């Protein structure tokens, strides 16, 4: 187990390094300049040159990379050009929202996707299955922001039940502030729950065609027990292994969702940082996302190995 985990972790580190090079090169290809954004419309050329030099942006890109990577290794992601604050702090500030949002979303995704997918699979071929699958496919076909805008229109603008935007920290207003994340998390959950629902249904159907399910039925076990003990667990193996992908999808959609709901999360932060060319922040966030993605994949992989005895642990 540990040697495998170590080996996987090693491979992950290599991936991470490659990713960091890509991130850096990529970001510095973006035209435009943080200086202009920083100084505004009327900055003079020498003012600009001076500031560029002060920020070290006139160094060769390799030098910039080495400096950045060197600091990153020590946990220092540099200084935000725009906020004039450490990138780690800027990201940490957005992390609360994003982590809570992602967690709530995943709760919805699991809570909606798995049970309803199970029901659809068990009632395979009935109108209920067709209805549920249809609804799922609808939500998989809807642009995230459109759902968000409609939720705002209905629950915030018209009914006034829930706030339309923003999110004050729960450390300031208590857990009641989670209601700010209700609509965004539902928005974000919609397509992903639909995906998990479809995946759960499909893999349950696949598993239920397996010979060992027939064996279980032959034993005289009740159908629901067959589902629970033999189909669901094996089907969830597939679903679990899709969580890495779901996470990546979530990150993409979070960018849009956080924008729609004006949430102070890292998704919106990264878009705005791209727009204002705050290189250190963009690099930092993407690095964090990549690390998270790789970490989640590592966990999923290890979990898979743990859940599936066919892949033996040593």
């Amino acid at each position: 187990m540990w040697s495998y985990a170590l080996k996987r972790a090693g491979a992950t580190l290599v991936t991470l390094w490659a990713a960091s090079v890509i991130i850096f090169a990529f970001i510095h290809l973006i035209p435009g300049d943080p200086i202009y954004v920083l100084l505004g419309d009327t900055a003079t050329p020498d003012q600009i040159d001076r500031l560029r030099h002060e920020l070290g942006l006139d160094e060769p890109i390799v030098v910039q990379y080495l400096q950045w990577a060197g600091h990153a290794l020590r946990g220092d992601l540099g200084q935000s050009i725009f906020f004039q604050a450490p990138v780690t702090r800027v990201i940490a500030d957005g992390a609360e929202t994003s982590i809570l949002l992602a967690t709530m979303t995943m709760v919805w995704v699991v809570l909606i996707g798995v049970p309803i997918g199970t029901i659809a699979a068990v009632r395979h071929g009935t109108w209920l299955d067709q209805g549920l699958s249809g609804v799922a496919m609808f939500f998989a076909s809807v642009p995230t922001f459109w759902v968000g805008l409609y939720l705002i229109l209905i629950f915030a603008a018209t009914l006034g039940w829930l706030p339309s935007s923003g999110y004050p920290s729960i450390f300031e207003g208590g857990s009641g502030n989670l209601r700010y994340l209700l609509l965004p998390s539902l928005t974000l959950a919609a397509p992903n729950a639909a995906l998990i629902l479809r995946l759960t249904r499909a893999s349950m159907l696949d598993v239920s065609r397996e010979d060992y399910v027939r064996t279980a039925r032959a034993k005289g076990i009740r159908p629901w027990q067959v589902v629970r003990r033999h189909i669901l667990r094996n089907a969830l193996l597939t679903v679990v292994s899709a969580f890495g992908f779901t996470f990546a999808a979530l990150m993409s959609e979070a960018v849009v969702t956080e924008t729609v709901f004006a949430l102070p999360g890292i998704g919106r932060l990264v878009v705005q940082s791209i727009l204002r060319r705050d290189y250190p922040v963009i690099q930092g966030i993407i690095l964090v996302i990549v690390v998270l993605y790789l970490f989640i994949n590592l966990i999923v992989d290890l979990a898979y190995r743990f859940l599936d005895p066919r892949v033996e642990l040593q």
Partner: protein
Amino acid sequence: MTTTILRVSDLKTSFNVKRSGRKYRVNAVDGVSLSLVAGEVLGIVGESGCGKTTVGRSIVRLVQPDSGAIEFKDTDVLSARGQTLREMRLNLRMVFQDPYASLNPRRSIGDSVAEAGDINKVFTSRAERAARIAETLTAVGLEPSFATRYPHELSGGQRQRAGIARAILPAPAVIIADEPVSALDVSVQAQVLNLMMDLREQLGLSMLFISHDIGVIGQISDRVAVMYMGRVVEMSGARSILDRAAHPYTRALMAAVPRPDPSQRIAGAIETGEPPSQFNRPAGCAYAARCPLVSERCRAEVPQLRPIGADDKVVACHNL
């Protein structure tokens, strides 16, 4: 005078297999020597995992052996290049087990049958190609019109005929038939076996016929090699194997074949054990653990093939 057309000497082929996160080297074929005389059918029989298929695949270079030599008509198969290789490709041909998997579903039967010729640019004109396809299809008992059909339109038996047609066009010298009838129903199996025997006679083919079914092997082969855990344990004329099996494993194998005769029932429970794990081969004779004749020597020393009795029988056993 008989000429040896194909000679396999001390062939060793192994694979990397990953189990439990660890890499194992599995010796699928562990020192096999065979020779095939022109016009004869040599049967290789053995149970799953004994390496018989790997021998066949090594000969057509689908797998790269670790060591050993394969000679086809005095040319070295393993180092052949260019024109020699092309010639060899046309002469050493394979028939596969699964008639459903061995034909590309997106290619017409004609295209599949003519593939060897197309790859090696044998045909000089489209007309010649079409004629050869038609001729070959007829030879395997299919209508020439099958050339334009697709595999999904054919039954299992017809597909296997197409598979055989592919192996004999343009004329090969040696056919390596890897379980060619195992996937077929008994009634169809008999048809295909008959076809192969007919073709052998008509075309003067030599054949390496690989099967787990001792009945089929006995039916079609002139000589038989019995394999166990990557080695040949007994080799002799077909009749001799069937009637006077010498190696304890061959005997067990023969005894285990269910006779279609209720008066020859095997009574009670038979416990003959199971083959050892491929990842953990015993040091001496691989059959030692199951062998009724086992002695100390068997556990320590690998027995070599040696002649026993008459009719060219060779057996790898210390205790005969």
